[in-house]
């Protein structure tokens, strides 16, 4: 008995090391497994609060670029109003790119990462604003990511720049679809894989979200084709897609509340059960 205690006291730091490395390795492995909520995420009061404080400073420094973007959007909206057929009654915008305004939650990016293989954003709205896991996140230019974790006041988003994202996407003019991934190389480009060889495509074509996704509505902009790879072995294309969004510079974003999502999932579940 004495010897056991002696052994434990003598090697206490080794035992502590083994215990802690067990915990941290399991956290690492758990964070790499697909579709599992993370234990350690930046959607909590400590990191969310700190990021919000840091962001207020950054926001002040970036006022000029933000103003430019707003001015641009203003000009666009104005031209839409002036170009309506009946100029006497200004048309009220009720949607942004096919999504009804009442289904959107306006939120702000308070932390953005883009320098590792698995990138996440932190937003300053959470469950109290109605944000739930697996809602889509877009901004005025195109898609941004998918909500992963939520806390009462904050939420984290899997960015499109993440090895784990898979988003259903299609060619805008032809309805051929594939899935959108990221190879971890450049922040400006994502890859569209599994696109059938039958599709007629050329460089510069627009890629939008597909109708098969229950997260994003159809026809939200993603990017344009920058390079086409033909694999002679298979019947699929792999495309390099240049994002419309500059993922290193995000400000305000919109979270999409999809009302039909639960209905679709329940329906598909029913089919599988039978």
């Amino acid at each position, binding site marked *: 008995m004495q010897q056991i205690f002696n052994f434990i006291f003598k090697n206490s730091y080794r035992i502590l090391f083994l215990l802690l490395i067990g915990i941290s390795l399991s956290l690492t492995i758990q964070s790499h497994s697909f579709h599992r909520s993370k234990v350690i995420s930046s959607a909590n009061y400590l990191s969310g609060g700190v990021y919000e404080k840091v962001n207020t400073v950054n926001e002040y420094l970036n006022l000029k670029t933000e103003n430019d973007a707003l001015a641009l959007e203003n000009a666009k909206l104005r031209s839409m109003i002036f170009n309506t057929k009946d100029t006497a009654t200004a048309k009220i915008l009720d949607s942004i790119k096919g999504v009804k305004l009442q289904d959107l939650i306006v939120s702000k990016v308070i932390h953005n*990462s883009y320098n590792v*293989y698995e990138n996440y954003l932190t937003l300053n709205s959470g469950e109290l604003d109605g944000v739930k896991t697996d809602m889509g996140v877009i901004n005025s230019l195109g898609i941004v990511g998918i909500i992963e974790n939520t806390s009462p006041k904050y939420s984290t988003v899997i960015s499109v720049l993440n090895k784990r994202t898979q988003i259903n996407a299609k060619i805008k003019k032809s309805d051929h679809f594939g899935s959108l991934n990221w190879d971890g190389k450049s*922040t400006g480009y994502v890859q569209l894989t599994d696109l059938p060889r039958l599709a007629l495509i050329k460089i510069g074509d627009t890629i939008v979200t597909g109708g098969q996704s229950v997260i994003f509505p159809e026809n939200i902009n993603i990017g344009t084709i920058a390079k086409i790879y033909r694999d002679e072995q298979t019947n699929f294309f792999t495309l390099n897609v240049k994002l419309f969004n500059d993922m290193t510079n995000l400000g305000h974003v919109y979270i999409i509340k999809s009302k039909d999502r639960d209905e679709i999932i329940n329906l598909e579940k029913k089919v599988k059960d039978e």
Partner: protein
Amino acid sequence: MNSALLVNIFRFVLLLAIQIIIFNNMNFLGYISPFPYILFIILYPVNGNKSGLIASSFLLGIILDLFSNSGGTHATACLVLAYLRPLLFKFAFGLSYEYQTIKLNDVITPQRFSFIFLSVIIHHFTLFLLEAFQLSYILDTLVTTLLSTTFTVILCIIIIYLIKPNRR
């Protein structure tokens, strides 16, 4: 003894804050991201409590993981470095390092440099390996490790010179 503890706590908080607010947002050429926060583990007193070092480096790593959404990668890398630290001391300063008075935050000698360099490379390799988590990315991992190591070592030496206590 008490002041050493206070200095360490101060260092812990300060390095963590600098890492989160400034260095986490750096990304030169898409490859290089420096992590000078491991200076806490490097500068921890040589004859200090071993369990204390391991527990505090775990805490250091897990807090950084919390902020950068990286699961447990930083925690694991910090723990590996903290555990291997005595070995690195032996390698850099000779067998009887425990009886010498080694001061790391002083003028950079070859021994001190080799100790810092080895610590940084071990930490970074573990970190990037776990971050990629795929053997097909091994080449990328090695390149990133080398580039980031150079950068972190330079930053560490600059910081050591900046906080070096003045000789009377």
